[in-house]
């Protein structure tokens, strides 16, 4: 436990602290800019784009060596990766626009071809004299061993720009994700907005290559927004919640991987993100599995209670065990299924409310009010006392249950 605590408190050495901070920043940028990617349902495009960085990395290395450098300049490698990733993105666009192939096919084709080319070029680099030590394969799954202060600065700057641009373009991106036809009708250029969104994602992918690697970066772009969706019903809040989830994943993941030797950072970060997702899936209020289950049970309870009381009011026998147990637990019926005093009163009330609702629907034909009728919401929550009195006037005097 102590090593983990040290790592969490940034006390596990300079490199570990640098990685933790860098991973948190990257997580925030990926989560925030991944929000609209998720809402636009284009997660897999980013996966193809990420894989299309590989040939760029290898080519940049070859070019830099040919020009007399040692080829390991991070900025140079990232620039190369951005170029081929952009080409990959345009290739997907072009395939979808100019052929009858669907986007998933285009994604598959581009991902496979670019990644394959990248692996071939990586082999070429391996046989070059200076290539063996380049460590380019670290970009596949990320590597933190030699992380420099400069690398963290690149992540911080690039991430800040990506988050800033996400904020600036939040409205057009939201509009296109929600209602593309309306966006086009109001004069938004869908293609440019989509390219801008993918450009942001591409930037985050590139700055995350070193830390998380090109294979897993898509997870960091997508899992935090999906997690955030459980906690909010507003897209604009999703940006920040998703960023926070990403940052938390990055920080915890980096700390975990620093707490024991030979734990790979990128994959651990992704697993932590997946853990946050699973926890949210289970316990989030509103959309979480538990909340849904509880809501469903409560609903079922209300339906059965109403059915049971209506049956009592109408002197129909109740055969359903769940209903009987429920009414018995509330003291509304005796164990033999005969209504108690309270049960009869409640039954009379619910039968009366049914009739009140009938009158209400005749008087208030506006769906805004009577639309709330589900037989389960108490009538007192929808109408005021004087309105209910008016319904009663129209209904006439109450009839006691049991009186024939």
């Amino acid at each position, binding site marked *: 436990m102590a090593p983990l605590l040290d790592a969490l408190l940034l006390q596990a050495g300079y490199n570990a602290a640098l990685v933790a901070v860098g991973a948190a920043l990257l997580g925030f940028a990926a989560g925030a800019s991944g929000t609209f990617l998720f809402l636009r349902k284009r997660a897999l495009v980013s996966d193809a784009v990420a894989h299309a960085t590989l040939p760029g990395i290898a080519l940049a290395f070859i070019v830099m060596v040919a020009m007399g450098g040692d080829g390991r300049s991070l900025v140079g490698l990232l620039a190369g990766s951005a170029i081929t990733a952009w080409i990959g993105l345009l290739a997907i666009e072009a395939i979808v626009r100019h052929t009858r192939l669907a986007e998933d096919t285009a994604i598959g084709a581009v991902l496979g071809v670019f990644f394959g080319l990248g692996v071939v070029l990586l082999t070429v680099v391996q046989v070059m004299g200076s290539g063996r030590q380049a460590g380019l394969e670290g970009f596949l799954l990320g590597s933190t061993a030699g992380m420099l202060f400069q690398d963290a600065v690149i992540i911080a700057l690039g991430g800040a720009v990506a988050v800033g641009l996400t904020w600036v373009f939040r409205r057009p991106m939201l509009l296109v994700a929600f209602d593309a036809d309306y966006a*086009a009708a109001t004069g938004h250029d869908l293609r440019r907005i989509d390219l801008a969104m993918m450009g942001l994602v591409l930037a985050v992918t590139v700055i995350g290559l070193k830390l998380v690697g090109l294979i897993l970066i898509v997870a960091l772009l997508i899992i935090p927004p999906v997690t955030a969706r459980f906690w909010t019903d507003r897209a604009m809040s999703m940006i920040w919640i998703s960023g926070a989830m990403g940052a938390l994943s990055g920080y915890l993941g980096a700390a975990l991987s620093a707490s024991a030797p030979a734990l790979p950072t990128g994959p651990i970060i992704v697993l932590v993100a997946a853990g946050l997702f699973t926890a949210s899936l289970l316990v989030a209020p509103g959309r979480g599995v538990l909340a849904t289950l509880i809501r469903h049970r409560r609903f079922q309870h209300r339906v059965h209670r109403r059915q049971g009381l209506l049956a009592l009011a109408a002197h129909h026998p109740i055969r359903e065990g769940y209903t009987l147990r429920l009414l018995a637990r509330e003291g509304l019926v005796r164990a033999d299924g005969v209504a108690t005093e309270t049960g009869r009163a409640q039954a009379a009330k619910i039968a009366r409310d049914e009739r009140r609702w009938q009158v209400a629907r005749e008087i208030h034909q506006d769906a805004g009010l009577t639309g709330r009728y589900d037989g389960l919401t108490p009538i007192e929550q929808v109408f005021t006392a004087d309105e209910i009195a008016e319904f009663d006037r129209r209904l006439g005097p109450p009839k006691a249950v049991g009186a024939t």
Partner: protein
Amino acid sequence: MARGPAATPNPTVAARDGMVLPAAGPGTGTPLAVRGLTVSYGENPAVFSVDADFPPAAMSAIVGPNGAGKSTFLKASLGVIPRLAGEVDVFGKPVEQARARIAYVPQRASVDWDFPTTVIDVVKMGLYREVGLLGRLSGARSTRAMRCLDRVGMADFAHRQIGQLSGGQQQRVFLARALAQDADLYLLDEPFAGVDAATERAIIDVLRDLKAEGRAIVAVHHDLSTVPAYFDHVFLINVRRIAEGPVATTFTPETLQATYGGRLAATHLDELAITGGA
């Protein structure tokens, strides 16, 4: 080829004439003038060489059978889907330059209603064009969005998640968003499809108010029985333009027969003729 009674022999000439007309001042000009509009998926035209002129301060219906290209016509006019050919002028200007004066209400089935957004936020989308990327949406603009929501009777629902709305309520929210645009031309795609009677009344009331304010309304409409009651002007389409004009003179059994072919029962036509004449 052109069997429609009012087909223009050479739409390109008409289009050019429309363009050459001296620029009218804002507020004048036909709200929506379409010349030679053709939309095609592959080799099969969905809309072929259609001309149309929708009048100001009136409610116009676009009517035709399923697959006749009604929605396609509307979307292509707006540039939502690409045109193969054709010119579209809005108040005397090419549609691309008149966006600020157009409000569009898409079919409500065209979006994912589980999207994370609230009712009021959808209405505010109608203000995005006006406020730009970073303009404030709070304060006076927020009040305006709320008023639009109130006009469609949905003010109490402002902060609901849109997934909780009924079909009619969804349609009202879309109308409120269009109202927020404060446009001069309202284009609606099947605004009454699958909505409850109360919503239909609420929508028609709002549209009549818009008309009374001098705005033009063009709606794709599928319910023939309500055309005479709701609309002033009718445009009948079945891939090609069939007929266009005031409902009183154009919405007749003959033009409907021409639009729907054998698909409309004779009894239905008689019924409509009676309603139309009344």
